[in-house]
C-alpha cells in the first residue's frame, strides 16, 4: 500500500495563533511557535512534519486562510 506524505506551509505573518489548526490535525503535526510574528501572535508551524498526511483538515478550518497543503504518494 502506497504511503501518503504531506506537508503544510503556514503563512506566518497572516497567522493569528488561534490554535484551531493545531487541534484539528488528526496527526498532531502542528503546534504554536514560541516566537511571535510582527503582530505579536505565536504562529502555527509543523512541530512534527513527518506525521503529516496532507489531509488538509488544518487548512480547511483555518479562519485566516494561512495554510497551503501539499501531498505525495510515496
Amino acid at each position, binding site marked *: 500500500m502506497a504511503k501518503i*506524505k*504531506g*506537508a503544510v*506551509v503556514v*503563512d506566518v*505573518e*497572516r497567522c*493569528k*495563533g*488561534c*490554535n*484551531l489548526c493545531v*487541534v*484539528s490535525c488528526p496527526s498532531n503535526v502542528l503546534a504554536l511557535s514560541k516566537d511571535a510574528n510582527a*503582530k505579536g*501572535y505565536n504562529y502555527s508551524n*509543523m512541530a512534527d*512534519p513527518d506525521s*503529516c498526511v*496532507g*489531509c*488538509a*483538515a488544518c*487548512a*480547511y*478550518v*483555518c*479562519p*485566516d*486562510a*494561512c*495554510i*497551503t*497543503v*501539499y*501531498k*505525495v504518494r*510515496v
Partner: protein
Amino acid sequence: MTTNDIINPANLVYAKTKVMNDVPMHYCPGCSHGVVHKIIAEIIEEMDMQEKTIGIAPVGCAVFAYKYLDIDWQQAAHGRAPALATAVKRLLPDRLVFTYQGDGDLAAIGTAETIHAANRGENIAIIFINNGIYGMTGGQMAPTTLEGMKSSTSPNGRTVPLNGHPLDITKLLAQLKGTCYVTRQSVHTIAAVRKAKKAIQKAFENSMDNKGTSVVEIVSTCNAGWKMTPEAANDWMVENMFPAYPLGDLKDL
C-alpha cells in the same frame, strides 16, 4: 523525501483561493467569519462567478467582508442587506446576489427586511452567521443568545423574563413560501466545512436558477464575545448552540 520536496506546486492539495485578497483580516484569532469567507471565495472561484457576483455586506464584524473577497460589494445599513439584495437582483436578474449577515443584523434590526425578502421569494442567497452575540460592538446580547448565556448586556446570563426567548429565525424562514432552501451548518471541523460549502454552493446555484430565497445559517463562534479561547468556543458551541440550533436542512425544495 523531505518536507521541502513535498512542497511543490505539483503536489498542491489546498491553497488560498485567488478570490480571497491577500490583506490580513481584522477578525479576532479563531473567528468563524474567516472560515465562511474562505468557503464563499472558493465557491465563487469554482463556479467562475467572480464577474457575476454582487455581495451585500452587513453592519457587524463582517462589515469589512468587502476588503477580503475580490468581488463587487455593497455595504448595507444595519439589518437592511436583504432590501439591497432585493433591488440588486431584480435589476440584475442574471447575477449571483448574496447577503452576508450576523444574528444581530439579520434577526434583530433586520427582522422585517429578512422575512419579507424571503417571503417574496427573492432569488438571493442569505448567509447567516449565528454566533449568538453582537461581536462588533463588544459582545452584547443578540436575539439568538441562549438562555443563561452571558453577554455585556446580560452580564448574569440571559433570562426569559428580562430578555425574552432566543429566536430561532431560521425556523421561521423555512415556513415561508418564498424560501426554496433553508439549512443550518457549522464550520468547526473539516467535515462541517465541507458540508457548509456544499450548502452555500447550492444556495448560490438556486440564486442563479431563480428558485427563490435560500438561507444558509452557519452556527458560529465569537470567542472574543464569549470570552473563551477559540478551541473552547468550538466546544461550547457543540455542547450548547447545537442543541438549540440543530444542524441540518430545514427545507430543500
